[in-house]
């Protein structure tokens, strides 16, 4: 490869590097991504978020909590993986947790997974919680999603 071609390659790579932070900012806003991730060099720009997950079985219209201590190891592993994924991408769905739960509890009826995201809310300058309810009516079904609480990161 000639030196001119190598210089063009270097220029192209550097141009993409220069354009990426603006694209990154737009993607963070659009898909609720963690600003610290995806190589946008937006570390120390926004406080990190925390994610908690609750499980409820719904039978005959009654909601019964499934405590964390009752979760089998396979669900627990999936839960840890999901919490990491959710912190990186706020739009991630807990579909795989539903699948693991149904493998562990074949008699499970409707499963409600409540994902609580604790994040800094710039409008109030306080920490706030957002609740996302994922209602799985049967195995491998699309969840019914309901969002409560503050609007998002920014």
């Amino acid at each position, binding site marked *: 490869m000639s*030196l*001119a071609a*190598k*210089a*063009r*390659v*270097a*220029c192209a*790579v*550097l141009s993409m*590097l*220069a354009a*990426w*932070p*603006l694209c*990154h*900012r737009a993607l963070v806003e659009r898909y609720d991504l*963690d*600003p*610290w*991730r*995806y*190589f*946008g*060099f*937006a*570390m*120390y*720009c*926004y*406080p*990190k*978020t*925390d994610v908690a997950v609750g499980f409820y079985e719904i039978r005959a219209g009654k909601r019964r909590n499934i405590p964390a201590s009752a979760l089998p190891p396979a669900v627990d592993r999936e839960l840890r993986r999901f919490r*990491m994924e959710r912190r*990186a*991408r706020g739009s991630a769905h807990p579909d795989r947790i539903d699948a693991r739960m149904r493998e562990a509890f074949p008699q499970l009826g409707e499963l409600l997974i409540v994902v609580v995201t*604790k994040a*800094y809310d*710039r409008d*109030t*300058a*306080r*920490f*706030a*919680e957002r609740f996302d309810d994922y209602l799985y009516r049967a195995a491998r079904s699309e969840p019914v999603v309901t969002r409560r609480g503050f609007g998002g990161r*920014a």
Partner: protein
Amino acid sequence: MQSAATALEGFTRSKPAAPGLARRLLALAGDEPAASAEPNLRAFQLLVLLHLAVERASSAIALAARGGSAGHTLLAAGIALVCVASLLAWRKPATARTATFAALAAQLVFVSAAFPHNANHDLLVVLALGLVALLDLRRPEEREVLLQSLRWMTLIILFATGLQKLLHGTYFFGEYLAVRIAHSDSFAALFQYALPEAEFLRLRSLGANPGVAGAALFLGSASGALPEAGTGPYRVHSPLFLVLANGVWVFEMLMPLLLMIRSTRTWAALATLAFLGALQLSARELFFLGIFANCMLLFLPGGNLKARTAFAVFYAAVLLRTLWQARLWLLA
């Protein structure tokens, strides 16, 4: 006929082709021949390989000590071994380029395996290795382009860190730093001197560790648990603190411009290195500090070569710290 060909060859030799747009753009980042000298760029290459070997070895040690899965631990150990082998292969100029390609491949495997949970400087390492692999530093004209490209990379990243703070808007009222002061001892340690006492105590009362103050905070952690929902507000009104908070992103966006101007380059590079060092009192991002300081030294003639010993001591200390932490994890 032969003499005509010789004459033509002589003509083309005496009139080299004008550099293209790409080379003219790259040349804006500087053209000092001393800085693109082979020993300095070889030192830069060595320090990137040293950084990578220590960081990947630290990842593998931490993963093993924390009881990661066998598959992940083996992959991390394999990547670390390739990086250490690349570092050793650097000693011979004939194998240094192959070592760079091997290290780049290992880092790409790591970045893919860890995505999206990577540190931002993982990309910096990929780009630095990619540019060193693309441009052969044994050839003077390629060295010049390499130095310019690496400098541009550094300038863009420094500017991006400031731009992102501006776009996210959490420094205008000092909010981001206020959150960290409340919940992280190491941030409180540095900024306690920039806040009025009442404001500092108010912010610390929002966190889990309000009783600790003074120099003891420097021994604390850079991270802390998030508070209950409703905790706040985290806006600060102290003028001095607001100047400092906004000064961070202004500095990060201004310095790249001053680094491009030859007359201000040296002091801008020194100021940025001092700024990076001061930030580490709070942020404790040692790997980012190591690789970015190495890149910043490219703006000081012979900087990387002169700092080799200091970097060797720094990375040895970082590795010892990892081993100490691994011992604590194993004992826990």
